């Protein structure tokens, strides 16, 4: 059974209590209506259930979340999936800055664009590998200080003057991988990363997440499949290891 919560006029504390209670009651589908600006939605929630969000959720959506799946009919703001542990967030719109900040597991799919510092300090451990797929373009500092995980940028729906990623892409990156559709100008890359040839295993991995992406947002897979991708990886696991101590 689905349950609905009207967020109109609620502050984030009141709203959070209602959502927490619905989750504790074992609801499997929770619909949030008239959401506008409430922070920390689903922060720290554990379990196996769905949350549908109608409106514009506030900062730190799904922060520390561990398990649930969220679908947002609209845009999300800054800090989406901050330090998320597991679960899935699907944004049928764009997001603000630092999406996927320190994300350590789970999946974030964004139909539109993402802001500055997307995927900053994402990390992975063992089989727990966070995945961030952006349908549009991103701002500067994509994957800054990235320590693990997978970032995929598709550049769909761009205007001729737009660029798929901003400057300083992968600055300080020391783990994980980014796949960026098309060619990007070498000056966009940070000092700590390089572009390498795609291999068979990369295409297998991409196909898996692109199929998901296309299913969520009704995109056609072949448009994406027909394009080339650039794979970006770090030179080194510890780029600043000798910053203060000589070799």
């Amino acid at each position, binding site marked *: 059974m689905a349950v609905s919560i009207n967020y109109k006029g609620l502050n984030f504390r009141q709203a959070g209590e209602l959502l927490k209670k619905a989750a504790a009651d074992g609801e499997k589908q929770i619909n949030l209506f008239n959401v506008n600006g409430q922070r920390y939605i689903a922060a720290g929630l554990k379990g196996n259930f769905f949350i549908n969000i109608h409106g*514009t959720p506030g900062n730190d959506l799904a922060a520390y979340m561990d398990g649930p799946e969220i679908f947002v009919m609209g*845009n999300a703001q800054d800090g989406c999936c901050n330090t998320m542990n597991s679960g899935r967030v699907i944004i049928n719109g*764009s997001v*603000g800055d630092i999406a996927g900040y320190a994300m350590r597991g789970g999946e974030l799919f964004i139909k539109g664009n993402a802001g*500055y510092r997307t995927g900053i300090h994402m990390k992975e451990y063992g089989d727990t590998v966070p995945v961030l797929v952006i349908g549009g373009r991103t*701002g500067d500092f994509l994957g800054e200080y990235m320590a693990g995980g997978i970032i995929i940028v598709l550049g769909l729906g761009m205007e001729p003057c737009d660029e798929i990623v901003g400057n300083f892409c992968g600055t300080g990156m020391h783990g994980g991988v980014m796949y960026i559709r098309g060619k990007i100008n070498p000056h966009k890359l940070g000092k700590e990363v390089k572009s390498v040839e795609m291999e068979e295993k990369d295409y297998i991995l991409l196909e898996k997440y692109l199929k998901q992406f296309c299913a969520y947002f009704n995109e056609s897979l072949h448009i994406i499949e027909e394009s080339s991708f650039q794979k970006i990886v770090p030179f080194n696991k510890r780029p600043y290891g000798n910053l203060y101590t000589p070799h």
Partner: protein
Amino acid sequence: MDSKNFRIPSGCSICGIMNKKGRVFSGNDIIQSIALMHERSNGLGGGFAAYGIYPEYKNYYAFHLFYSDKNAKEETEHFLHQHFDVILGEKIPTRKIKSIKNPPLIWRYFLKPDSKRILLSDIEEENDYVFSCVMKINTYIKGAYVFSSGKNMGAFKGVGYPEDIGDFYRLDEYKGYIWTAHGRFPTNTPGWWGGAHPFTLLDWSVVHNGEISSYDTNRRFLEMYGYKCALQTDTEVITYTFDYLVRKQGLSLETAVKIVAPPFWSEIERLPKKEADFLRTLRYVYSSLLINGPFSIILGMSNGMLALNDRIKLRPLTAAVHGEFLYVASEESAIREICPQPHRVWAPKGGEPVIGFLEK
């Protein structure tokens, strides 16, 4: 004004609304928008700038003043009568609000500069004369602070949450074509009535989220041109910088933006020679006016509104347009609170200004 030594380490919120046709609307929208971002401030400062609110006195300079006591008021009024024709002086109407404590005396004056005094002085421009009077009051009269000095506009600010400050000043009763607002979360500087945003000079007003690490470099440069930074807050240098670059140096707003938030040298190298040379020249000549540190600002002026981020976007900013309206805010939800389905919503890049001018 006795809480100058009060410090709490910890974002801010900003928002602005402009009607491009110059049609006026009440302060309710801006209060509702800034109130949605309540969590971004901590009750130590809130304020508004409003343009178009004094149509019946639009040819006079509207001074808003804080006085800590009656002596400051007497001394200031004596100064005002010496330098201006005082058309009207009155208390700014306020409401009693439980959460707003210990307000200073708050007065406004509609002033016409004394033309004989201007002729006798070495100042040519009326604006410069008014500017020098503002600087004199703020520097030399103890306990007096001019927090607004433009024509047909005004700032309203204080210690409290912005929605309470808006209620305190009865902004629902005013109508303007541009409104900006600020909710404060003071970091490096004290929370006091004068330290609340906006910071204004003549028609300029600035609301700011962030901190300026180049404050002293900027201040030292501006002081050479008569600007006195007396308010213990980094934001005032932004107001003075735009006044200097645009009003005094005659540069366009777009050029001023390239000075305060210039492209990186590495970016300049990649541009066509002519453009690169121009940007290099700006960086050399006005190097002391580069504003460093994280910021998002909204600059209000009588003919428009400008919103700008630092070059690497260390503070949030969202813009939207709908019909005759331009909106900017720290958070998209603050715009949607008063305009649920804007025609277009976007996130400006760092250093890329959003500029709205009134359509003539």
